[in-house]
């Protein structure tokens, strides 16, 4: 049970995995406790969110497309919003409450972000899968046309959330203004993300503009996978991948800078 000294790449990877898991379990217990349904809140919370929105939309019948039932549209749309939005928001101001953990030489600033990212993506993914399964079983929505494409779209949205989370999380450690500006900004991003529309419904001149929004591309992929030929999807995979990749690198670079500034008591 000797504490390990840093060595090879694989050894470091094993340590990092262990540390991220430890942080993740700690986060689960501190956030949800051991009372009532405990860690199940991790995905029950986003599930309720999606359910309420789905209910509201069904009442208002906001879907303009006769081809897709409102429930299916809301579940795909809102679950996707949650995966990137929760992941990103959980990363803001993640370090300050955990500053004292920096005294453990194995724990790095990156690990704290990584554990939160993993936890939020897991929660949103379980919530999406459970809702999709239940709705399918109740015959409210049809099973996905192309499950691999759904997973790919989901993966891209989660990656976008992680990259943005790293960048915004690290930036929020460097300046307090970031968090204050970010919350309203993330609100504006919500309607722009394609949660309530498909690119096909817009006039061609707007389509080109709205496709600059990365999440729109991810959601279009996911919906094309889910609804197949019932919809016409517009997206640019290369653009989305390039955006996520640059955001990830940018985020990691910012984390490096923030790490140098971290100052525990």
């Amino acid at each position, binding site marked *: *049970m000797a504490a390990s000294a840093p060595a090879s790449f694989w050894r470091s990877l094993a340590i990092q995995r262990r540390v991220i898991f430890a942080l993740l379990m700690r986060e689960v217990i501190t956030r949800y406790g051991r009372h009532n349904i405990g860690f199940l809140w991790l995905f029950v919370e986003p599930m309720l969110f999606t359910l309420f929105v789905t209910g509201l939309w069904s009442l208002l019948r906001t879907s303009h497309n006769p081809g897709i039932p409102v429930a299916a549209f809301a579940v795909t749309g809102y679950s996707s919003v949650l995966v990137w939005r929760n992941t990103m928001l959980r990363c803001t101001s993640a370090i300050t409450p955990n500053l004292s953990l920096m*005294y*453990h030489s194995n724990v790095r600033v990156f690990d704290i972000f990584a554990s939160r990212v993993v936890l939020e993506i897991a929660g949103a993914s379980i919530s999406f899968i459970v809702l999709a399964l239940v709705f399918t079983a109740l015959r409210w929505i049809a099973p996905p046309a192309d499950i691999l494409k759904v997973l790919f779209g989901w993966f891209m949205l989660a990656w976008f959330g992680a990259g943005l989370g790293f960048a915004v999380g690290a930036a929020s450690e460097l300046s307090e203004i970031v968090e204050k500006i970010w919350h309203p900004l993330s609100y504006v991003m919500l309607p722009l993300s394609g949660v309530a529309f498909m690119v096909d419904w817009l006039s061609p001149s707007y389509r080109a503009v709205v496709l600059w929004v990365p999440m729109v591309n991810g959601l279009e992929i996911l919906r094309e996978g889910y609804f197949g030929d019932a919809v016409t999807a517009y997206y640019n995979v290369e653009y989305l991948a390039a955006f996520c990749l640059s955001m990830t690198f940018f985020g990691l670079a910012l984390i490096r800078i923030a790490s140098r500034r971290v100052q525990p008591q």
Partner: protein
Amino acid sequence: MIVLDKVSKVYGTRGGSRTVLDRISLQVARGEKIGILGGNGAGKSTLIRIISGAEMPSSGHVHHGMSVSWPLAFGGGFQGSLTGRDNLRFICRVYGADFDTALPFVEEFSELRGYLREPLKNYSAGMRARLAFAISMAIEFDCFLIDEVMAVGDARFHEKCHIELFEKRKDRAMIIVSHVPEQVRTHCNTLYVLDQGHIKRFDNPDEAYEHYASRNP
């Protein structure tokens, strides 16, 4: 071997940047015990934080060739809303130690027993310190960082900590920082004096004390 190579730390303050550590180089071999003497504001705590990895140096390198503990008897790494057991479980996961082996030791050593199932926020300061010390002893480190010589609990418990650390683990490396020469005298073979961010090594302890006394009258 722990190696610090020209480590500097500069903090940005309202009055401009302040150099707290200026090109500090030192080495600690396996089993070696070094003492670092320094007055108030000499940069001792900053140095300990940099060695433990809690902070990164502004320039220079820190190489950990062996595992290093957190500053001993330090209770800040624990979460108040978690129980003593959950805190121990977290530490065991972080350091890859076996929880089932560590638990009986911590129960026994900390003398907290049933309280380990209580959240830390219900502990007294003394109970927290006992738990913190017991947990640090449950993980086997190659090098222990000791910031001042801690007083944990009453005289009897303090004696117990002393035996556990300095007698049972006398084969380990230790880095002790203090402003009291007597505290480092008994344990250390190599002495350093830290003064205004500069460090000086002494092989002869008496020279170190003299130098320290002349700088901190």
